[in-house]
């Protein structure tokens, strides 16, 4: 990102004079060079593990395990083939259902809740908000045994619907908190104007508020998708053969005997693609959405 900044003024002809006298707030000279270098080092440092995963996914197992690491190799799709033939499809389908449905439910329940809490605050709104947040305070591991036993008694172990319900419950508090802050940004005058024009509650929500909070909604939905897609603990404990999700599939490529790094990387790469794609598609909305609460 930083490297593009010096190139930008060059696009404007005739603006070379100010360029030769850098603005003082730019912090030019050795200090800015150092900062750029540091940025690059940090960026590469953060990105390297991802790059290494991508590279490893195209290796053979013994190349993946070699030390010193193998840099030059003939890429192979063997690991992807093994992963897909290993029945990845069912896991992806389960993850899609659990993630998609739970996110839709979260939005469906979260929008009215956060609207009410932001725009029509009732008594003890802050208590309600605190209650929502407090459901996230108990570690999941502390409730897994009761949940497991209840699910067992209800005969809903190993069904994807159990995950849908749990993921909805898991993401709802975060979604309400996030969306409430977006609703709060909406000036009261807009609502007044809408009611002056005779719009009812539903109409105000649909035609006035929704377009304004859409970026926030997208950001919230994406975060719910990411959390649900990556959720491991509930899925591990509450599913078996039929309802297992992608994180469980990734784990199943690991073994305590034998080499598995290349296959694991291939599975991880495939698993991260949908979220990356979703993030990329929603990027524009997302950047606006995530920075919406930044300036108050």
């Amino acid at each position, binding site marked *: 990102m930083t490297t593009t900044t010096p190139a930008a003024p060059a696009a404007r002809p005739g603006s070379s004079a100010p360029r030769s006298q850098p603005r003082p707030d730019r912090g030019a000279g050795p200090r800015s060079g150092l900062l750029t270098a540091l940025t690059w080092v940090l960026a590469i440092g953060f990105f390297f593990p991802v790059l290494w995963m991508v590279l490893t996914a195209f290796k053979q197992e*013994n190349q993946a395990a070699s030390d010193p690491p193998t840099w030059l190799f003939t890429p192979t799709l063997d690991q992807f083939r093994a992963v897909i033939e290993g029945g990845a499809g069912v896991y992806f389908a389960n993850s899609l259902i659990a993630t998609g449905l739970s996110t839709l439910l979260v939005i469906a329940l979260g929008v009215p809740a956060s609207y009410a809490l932001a725009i029509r605050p009732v008594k003890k709104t802050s208590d309600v908000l605190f209650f929502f947040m407090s459901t996230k305070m108990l570690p999941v591991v502390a409730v897994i045994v009761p949940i497991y036993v209840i699910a067992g008694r209800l005969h809903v172990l190993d069904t994807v619907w159990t995950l849908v319900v749990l993921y909805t419950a898991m993401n709802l508090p975060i979604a309400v908190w996030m969306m409430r802050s977006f609703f709060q940004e909406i000036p009261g005058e807009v609502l007044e104007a809408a009611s002056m024009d005779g719009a009812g509650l539903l109409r105000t929500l649909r035609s006035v508020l929704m377009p304004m909070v859409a970026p926030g909604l997208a950001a919230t939905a994406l975060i719910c998708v990411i959390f649900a897609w990556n959720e491991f603990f509930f899925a591990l404990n509450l599913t078996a053969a039929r309802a297992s999700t992608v994180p469980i599939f990734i784990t199943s490529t*690991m073994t305590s*005997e034998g*080499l598995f790094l290349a296959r694991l990387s291939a599975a991880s790469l495939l698993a991260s693609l949908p979220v990356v794609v979703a993030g990329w598609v929603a990027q524009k909305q997302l950047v606006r959405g995530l920075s919406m609460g930044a300036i108050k």
Partner: protein
Amino acid sequence: MLAATGLTLAGCAGAGAVSSGGDTEQIVVAIVSNPQMQDAIALQEQFRAEHPGIDVQFVSLPENEARAKITASVATGGGEFDVVMISNYETAMWAQNGWLENLQPYADATEGYHPEDFVPSVREALSYEGDLYSVPFYGESSFLAYRQDMFTEQGLQMPEHPTWDQVADLAAELHDPEQDFAGICLRGLAGWGENMAPMSTVINTYGGQWFDEHWDATLDSPQVRSAVTDYVNLVRDYGEPGAATAGFGECLTMFTQGQAAMWYDATSMVSSVEDPSSSTVAGDVGYAPAPVMETEAAGWLYSWALAIPATSEHQDAAWEFISWMTHPDYMHLVGEEIGWARVPPGSRLSTYDIPEYAEVAGAYEEEMLRAMEHASQEVTMTEPVPYRGIQFVAIPEFQDLGTRVGQQMSAAIAGQVTVEEALAQSQRYAETVAASYQAQQEEQP
């Protein structure tokens, strides 16, 4: 909204039941994702062809996750699984709790199954009151792998029955830190199934034990101290770099990539060590019995075995599957379809009579079978103990105890604490466990 969700749930559960009904019976099998088990999954078409009425679904997870999941399901009667993969650690305990089906009648009634063909030490370890409650898929002991080519090159000789002193001398000779080459690989990663497995066999052969006959913890005995001191010193002085966090997997990688001269670990290593596609040292490795001190033998005994939880509603179909996967014919199926080196070893004596297997397994099969046959408390311990198991103590508390002691040992290998401090702390843990275990035993009629 809640009501709607409830309706959806009920509707879908109903739909699931209908689709899995009809003529096919669905069974769910939970197994550990080791290479041989993956082969069994790959061979499912064969089972399906022979048993069109049975639809097998697999849950395959790494050891720790599988164990936690299977234990939770069986102990709470969750009933998700019709077949579970457990080991000789769980079998007798769970059989005693009434959690498992008795497989002896099934095994006796199945034609050509020959339960008497199972390796005797393994059969004994998977039996409760004389009956099999799980049947072995494969069995393993521990032995010492060494780089035959390097030994020859340097004019060294591996003794026929090495002692830990001799192994330490050899490791000193071959250790070359400048070349990133370790004299020996030993597990240091904390865990009852990680560092405590090899270390317990060392403790046993030095004359130590976890508990004496009266359930008194004995981790502070001179024998245990000298065993642990030697193990820690050996791996610190001539072991692999980063030993405190190296488990089976790390050692396997190092040894197969030619970065260690010796490796004391599970006999099941051979399927990776001798596989030229993943190992650079295949064909260059010799095998010797587990190093000893005071005892005749020192190898451990472990077996991944299949059992039927008492909650299963498809027990006959479950046995059909189990008997297929542990049948003498299965060895031939794997040999012909996947390769003879991949045959699950250490479960059946007859496996070692198959000429094709002998051909690929010549380097290790004799040593492996001998290790399996010698894996009993009688020859690997100096004193009788009140528990089952060689490299573990078969009580429910041991998973936790073993892992906590393993953390102390790992810290000693990392140099964070001294061996004395680690053992003093471990002894306290063991005393607490012994007290609570005995109290529970007394409560039970």
